[in-house]
């Protein structure tokens, strides 16, 4: 805060040191840098504004406020309609039948896993879970056109992104059950996945913090590539809900990404609800997309239930993000949160069950893709049944394996608080080891990987 005052003081000092004549012809303290000084003065007879804050704005003598309602609602791009028929005739399918089936199976996998894990939480087998029903096309589709090297930040409802990039059922289950194979060493709440190999940052609970971080990561990638042009061009993709876009962090992120020209794709999952808050109480503008334009960011709104639209938009966005040395892109993908917010929520307290059932039946990303595949003739009822049963079996198998797996080594509770174990932590670790050795019958160490031996320094 202090820093905001200091530059002003130094400006005043600068202007005081200038000769009187110069000062009067340059009103205001804008003499600091040549970059800003250039467009300041108003040429005589000019018909547009030359203030540094709004260049090329035409003068008008009509006192008229711009009303949001003057602008038509931004359109929503779609490739296929609700029955899976292609309506964008310029759309060219770049995937083989097998590849389409693979996408469908990924969507199926997370939707089946969600139902099973939601019930498992209800049975008390894990403390928390979040499902992503209704948003499978959005997450799987967008992830399927990003490169492996691209960096991803998620909010918490992007199972599909993890699955599409190669997170296996075992990876999911190991994290959910916090066993020794869990990459976060059992330290996180369920659904806080992360993967270094897949270039996905670990999910963090506080809302919207990932959005400015993504802008920063993109800036980092851009600088890296300037320093070493042999590196492949990379972008950052960041996911968030329309509720998170109310946080100050969202606005800070879009502004900094635009001003620093960061190659980042902001992907907003607008699913209609932030816990119980409907979008009407969340914002009054034209969705999240209209904000991108305000920040000078190229923006598109797509039908999030249409996997082809999501893929086409993300593909194009990635291309654009890498043009002209990098720039941010905003995609607002519209969907409907068919599920409850999390296992701590019962959404029928604030919306009608029939509304949800209606959405499930009328427009569901899975059934839309299924209809597409059936129309093309490479999918049918028998294959559907087989895929569903097979996936269910796989999920349950990974489930029971992960639940039985041993817990992380005892040592891991000392590690990673700091980069290196501090002397205090080492002493505590030794103390614990001595204690366990002194009272071998008092503790059940078998369920921890390595038993007490993990405490050897």
């Amino acid at each position: 805060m202090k820093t905001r005052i200091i530059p002003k003081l130094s400006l005043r000092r600068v202007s005081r040191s200038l000769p009187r004549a110069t000062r009067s012809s340059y009103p205001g303290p804008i003499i600091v840098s040549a970059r800003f000084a250039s467009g300041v003065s108003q040429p005589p007879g000019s018909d547009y504004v030359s203030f540094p804050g709004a260049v090329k704005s035409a003068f008008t003598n009509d006192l008229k406020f711009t009303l949001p309602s003057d602008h038509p609602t931004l359109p929503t791009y779609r490739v296929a309609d609700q029955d899976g028929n292609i309506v964008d005739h310029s759309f060219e399918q770049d995937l083989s039948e097998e590849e389409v089936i693979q996408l469908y199976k990924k969507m199926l996998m997370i939707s089946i896993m969600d139902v099973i894990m939601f019930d498992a939480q209800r049975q008390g087998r894990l403390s928390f879970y979040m499902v992503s029903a209704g948003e499978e096309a959005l997450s799987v589709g967008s992830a399927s056109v990003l490169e492996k090297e691209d960096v991803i930040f998620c909010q918490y409802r992007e199972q599909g992104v993890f699955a599409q990039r190669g997170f296996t059922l075992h990876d999911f289950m190991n994290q959910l059950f916090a066993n020794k194979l869990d990459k976060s060493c059992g330290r996180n709440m369920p659904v806080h996945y992360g993967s270094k190999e897949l270039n996905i940052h670990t999910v963090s609970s506080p809302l919207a913090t990932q959005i400015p971080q993504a802008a920063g990561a993109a800036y980092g990638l851009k600088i890296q590539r300037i320093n070493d042009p042999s590196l492949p061009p990379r972008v950052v993709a960041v996911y968030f809900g329309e509720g998170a876009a109310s946080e100050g962090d969202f606005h800070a992120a879009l502004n900094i990404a635009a001003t620093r020209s960061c190659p980042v794709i902001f992907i907003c999952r607008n699913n209609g609800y932030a816990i119980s808050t409907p979008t009407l109480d969340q914002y009054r503008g034209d969705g999240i997309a209209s904000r991108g334009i305000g920040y000078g960011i190229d923006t598109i709104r797509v039908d999030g239930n249409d996997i082809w639209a999501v893929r086409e938009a993300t593909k194009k966005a990635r291309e654009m993000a890498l043009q002209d040395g990098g720039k941010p892109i905003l995609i607002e993908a519209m969907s409907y949160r068919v599920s409850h917010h999390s296992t701590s929520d019962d959404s029928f307290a604030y919306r009608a069950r029939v509304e949800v059932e209606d959405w499930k039946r009328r427009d569901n990303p899975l059934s839309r893709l299924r209809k597409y595949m059936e129309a093309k003739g490479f999918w049918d009822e028998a294959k559907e049944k087989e895929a569903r049963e097979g996936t269910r079996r796989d999920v349950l198998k990974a489930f029971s394996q992960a639940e039985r797996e041993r817990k992380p080594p005892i040592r891991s509770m000392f590690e990673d608080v700091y980069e290196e174990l501090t002397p205090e932590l080492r002493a505590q670790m030794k103390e614990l080891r001595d204690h366990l050795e002194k009272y071998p019958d008092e503790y059940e160490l078998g369920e921890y990987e390595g038993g007490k031996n993990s405490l050897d320094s």
Partner: protein
Amino acid sequence: MSRYLRPAARLAASARITTAAPRSLPRLTSSAAFAVSQRRSFADVKGTKDYTVREALNEAMAEELEQNEKVFILGEEVAQYNGAYKVTKGLLDRFGEKRVIDTPITESGFCGLAVGAALSGLAPICEFMTFNFAMQAIDQVVNSAAKTLYMSGGIQPCNITFRGPNGFASGVGAQHSQDYSAWYGSIPGLKVVSPWSAEDAKGLLKAAIRDPNPVVFLENELMYGVSFPMSEAAQKDDFVIPFGKAKIERQGKDITLVSLSRTVGQCMVAAEALKKKYGVEAEVINLRSVKPLDVESIIKSVKKTGHLISVESGFPFAGMGAEILATTMEYGFDYLQAPAQRITGAEVPTPYAQGLEEMAFPSEKLIEDYAAKLLRV
């Protein structure tokens, strides 16, 4: 000491001290869920009624909304959804959407809005879904709410109450289970209170809403569903508990356990165990108020017992325990027969694993063992 404590002591002298002991000691709630029944029993012969902490908070807000039209409540999920932890249940229906306001998910936004409303003369209650999320808005709390009265030369009071769950929860990991008592307690201009029982909750919240200063009101998620008997006096709508005055929850002569919020209940359990096992009488002080801190009660108790342990759930470094011990050392060093001890949360980001999580916070057994060790019994 008396100079140091004068304002609090004056308030205390005029206060009626309620001494109803909890009929049933709070159980450790093992689940983060808030699906605890909201039943309220009928009055018994003495006129006391069982209230959950949640009901007490709800009643306090309802009464203040009723009595002062400047009071309103805002926050995420407080209206339509009745609050993420159901603390504001029924308030929307009763007071309408002008007084009970759902906000977008913008802690810095709605907190700033509430501070602005307070600076303009209203008396907002700003609910944070948890104080962990209030970090997004801490600039508004610390730099604006706490300091504007001083910096405006006294022309802009800020009558605001920030409330929400704080401290240890269950099964929600490192980013959702922190205790901010010491954080807010260190800011000049803020008053900070933290209730344990239903009476605390009601009396302190009403006092917080009426207090012309910004008050940070730190609740605990695991206490919401716990029932306490509420005296007849406390059930009335004029019941307030003065700030800066601790409550002796249990009389004792051998050791003083100073505590606040949920750990008070743990101290009560430990005190009973100490009596049963060792015949030791522990005095349990429920601080109620972090700032101003009731040093007088602590020192009086230490004069009697000669031993002190502070019990709290925050991190150890520069925490509440450090403050309590340092203050005791300054004003009561000569009465201590052994070095005072502190029991705190562990110096570690709260682990998710259930066993480790339990060990990361004070437990009844730990308090009992440390007290026994300190007393050499």
